[in-house]
């Protein structure tokens, strides 16, 4: 009985969910093309998108038994870099290019009212904060819908796994409230305040403009009031104290796969692409150069910006601080890397390109996680069968198997603690946990099994 109804759910729900999402996307596309649409269609669009994704997600998995749902991942066009993947990659990339560099194509107008896609979101923006929508409002709204809608899909997919359930609920709530509703509503409530970032978890160095003079000035201005001061102090305490302490206790996962917006999108909308990350040793080398390079870059930029702020100089060693420091970072890293490449290339390079190769916040926490943390992925004795599910589904491109098959714990700077390696392991070999620092790194692991062979794996 229940089986039959579950199958109905699947055969009916999937097309209904896809259909609704499609309706939402078509409305967005029409508006993107500059066609003026009645405001009722905005609500239709938002509801269709959100519920479409949820219905699709629920009915895709609800009719099946609880367990790992990776059948056919490498056989499908969308998830194996086929035509669908390329088309979606191009569309998302196109959206990001317009968003960052050609917002007038989305309807932004230097003088007078906005048009097109941006104006289409005005009713929602007025409802939330009493002012017209910006391109960032449109982006934030769609971003949040993607995380919440596809977060539901992820939860149903992993409903047997309580770690996945709570983690996903956490990124959904963090995005919905910390990143979206609270800042937007506060903008509306304190319209006299100049802008400063109000997402409580958006710490420097991910928030690269935190120390820029305009941002500090806005927080410390009279209109910013005590709230501005609070955000200034919180932001400094956040990156100097909270971040390393929490990372010490639980690893960087508390941020990357429990609250972060970039991580939130990667874990929900990006989940179907997690296996596309490159696992080669070459890419690991590239990763270390790039991500630590970006960290160094933002440290230098911020140092120069602070020099400018305290000295009152607009230039550093003869170079204009905006032109030579702030602007290139914002362009190269803030926009091109994190947005265009980071999200636009999901279907081709995987869902964590930015988090793995670019994010300076991840680099910073990664250093803590690697050298001073209680977090590790424990390998369960000699139970590994080298099947490679863990490595395949590691979105960070960690070759998890190479550790597990030696009986070695996985302690890696880049691990965001999503827990999927542990979930897909067919033999119960991997466990993310926080424990004593001693015994965390096993340089000479012993594979349990034989009485007399206490081998170490220092050579191979």
């Amino acid at each position: 009985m229940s089986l039959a109804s579950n199958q109905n759910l699947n055969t009916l729900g999937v097309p209904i969910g896809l259909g609704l999402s499609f309706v939402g996307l078509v409305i967005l596309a029409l508006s993107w093309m500059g066609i003026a649409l009645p405001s009722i269609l905005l609500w239709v669009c938002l509801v269709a998108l959100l519920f479409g994704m949820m219905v699709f997600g629920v009915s895709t998995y609800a009719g099946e038994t609880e367990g790992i749902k990776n059948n056919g991942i490498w056989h499908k066009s969308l998830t194996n870099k086929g035509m669908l993947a390329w088309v979606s990659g191009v569309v998302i990339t196109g959206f990001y290019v317009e968003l960052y560099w050609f917002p007038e194509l989305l309807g932004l107008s230097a003088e007078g009212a906005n048009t097109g896609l941006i104006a289409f979101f005005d009713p929602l923006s007025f409802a939330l904060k009493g002012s017209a929508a910006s391109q960032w409002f449109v982006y934030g709204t769609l971003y949040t819908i993607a995380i919440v809608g596809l977060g539901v899909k992820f939860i149903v997919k992993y409903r047997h796994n309580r770690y996945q359930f709570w983690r996903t609920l956490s990124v959904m709530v963090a995005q919905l409230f910390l990143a979206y509703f609270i800042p937007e509503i506060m903008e509306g409530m304190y319209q006299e305040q100049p802008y400063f970032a109000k997402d409580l978890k958006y710490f420097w160095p991910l928030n690269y403009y935190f120390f820029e003079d305009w941002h500090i000035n806005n927080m410390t201005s009279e209109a910013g009031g005590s709230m501005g001061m609070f955000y200034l102090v919180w932001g400094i305490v956040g990156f100097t104290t909270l971040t390393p302490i929490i990372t010490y206790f639980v690893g960087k996962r508390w941020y990357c796969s429990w609250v972060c917006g970039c991580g939130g999108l990667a874990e929900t909308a990006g989940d179907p692409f997690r296996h596309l990350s490159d696992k080669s040793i070459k890419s690991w080398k590239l990763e270390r150069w790039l991500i630590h390079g970006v960290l160094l870059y933002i440290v230098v930029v911020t140092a120069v910006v602070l020099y400018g702020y305290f000295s009152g100089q607009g230039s550093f060693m003869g170079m204009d601080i905006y032109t030579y420091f702030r602007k290139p970072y914002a362009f190269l890293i803030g926009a091109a890397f994190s947005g265009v490449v980071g999200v636009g290339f999901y279907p081709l390079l995987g869902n964590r390109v930015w988090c793995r190769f670019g994010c300076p916040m991840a680099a910073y926490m990664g250093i803590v996680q690697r050298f001073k943390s209680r977090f590790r992925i424990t390998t369960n004795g000699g139970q590994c069968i080298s099947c490679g599910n863990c490595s395949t589904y590691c979105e960070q491109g960690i070759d998890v198997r190479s550790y597990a098959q030696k009986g070695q714990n996985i302690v890696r700077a880049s691990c965001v603690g999503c827990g999927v390696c542990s979930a897909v392991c067919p033999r119960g070999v991997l466990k993310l946990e926080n424990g004593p620092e001693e015994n965390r790194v096993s340089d000479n692991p012993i594979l349990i099994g034989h009485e007399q062979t206490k081998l170490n794996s220092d050579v191979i």
Partner: protein
Amino acid sequence: MGAKRIVIIGNGISGITTARNVRKRNAEAQIVVVSSETKYFFSRTALMYAYMGHMKKEHMKPYEDGFWAKNRIELCFAHVNSIDFEEQKLNFSNGKQTNYDKLVLALGSTPNKFGWPGQDLKGVQGLYSFNDLESMEENTVGIKKAVIVGGGLIGVEMAEMLRSRKIEVDFLVREKRFWGNVLPIEEGKLIQRHINEHHVNLLLETNLEEIISDENGRVRAVKTDTHGEIECQFVGLTAGVSPNIKFLKDSELETDRGILVNEFLETNQPNVYALGDCAQFKTAPKGRRNIEQVWYTGRMMGEVLAKTLTGSKTEYKPGNWFNSAKFFDIEYQTYGTVTANLEEGHSQFYWEHNNGKIGIKFVFDSDSRRFIGINTFGVRMRHELFDKWLTQGQSIDFIMEHLEDANFDPELYKSYGTEILKSYNSEFNKNIKIKKKSWSRIFS
């Protein structure tokens, strides 16, 4: 003395572990690994995941291709026709030859075929090799119905593979229950329910009599003793595997079902060793069978043989038994010894969650109450702790008390420790309290 030339036939887990560990211990030895299955080592355990689209074939390789050259392990993709034990030479099918100082036979297995009529028809196959994966992909294109013969681990893997492509499966099991020679009745029932839940039609106590051909020499149906003729377009033969030693049967090498070896994995021929699936111990290690075709034992034998080959002769002495598997969605782990039928003088305790998918079986000595073994379904346990407890000879009460230490389920999972203890206490009239998880005990 020049560097020894060690030639290993077979690049499965046994052969490759031998090669890797020889290299770890000796920088000079020439190491050659010969295989006609694939050029590079791949993980046999991943065959099913490649078929189901969880992985691509390239993901089955645990080491990057450059690893072998970097560690000076020569890979030779060739087929050995015969071995000249006198001259210490291999004859390849392409007419070439190579010599060895030490020869390691890691030949693996082949699926059993028991002489069923029609067992060589098109669409009939086992699942062991890379080639089997490719032919299964070919043989199952567009088909509707399949029959699997033989109720063990490969059978249930094959069922899962076929179901992933929505192919109907009839699963013929000769015994009264699934994996009846290994699993006790409670566990067998738990797994059977789950197999049925995945719409696999389990036909117990059913024997294959004949595989029937269509006009093109392809399977059309099977004939069984209890269910008559069953129409199908594919037959999976998964009634166990046997050592892959056919080409050595008429040689000087002493064989029985497998290649006969002593406790040092030495054969009757000088400088020739055998290990893994193809080896048969003349005297089985204590408490073990004389052929054990398991990933882990192949790996352990490889570690041991590498020691012997590099100058410290080491006896194969496997420690406490452990194993694991996954039946569709349900993971299984076992530590110590749990036999299908409770042995005399042993007692057992079985706990099952009311969802019917999580179960744990404990076996212990009735008099001394020494813990003997555990089967877990849907719960993960720490290997290291159970290995230690078995070696220490801890009592069943001790195990019960420390279940939280042993639990290896992901964080935030519900713990069943208290519930299990409650049931144990009432069944055995005890009053044991479960201890909170302690890192210092786990690492002590």
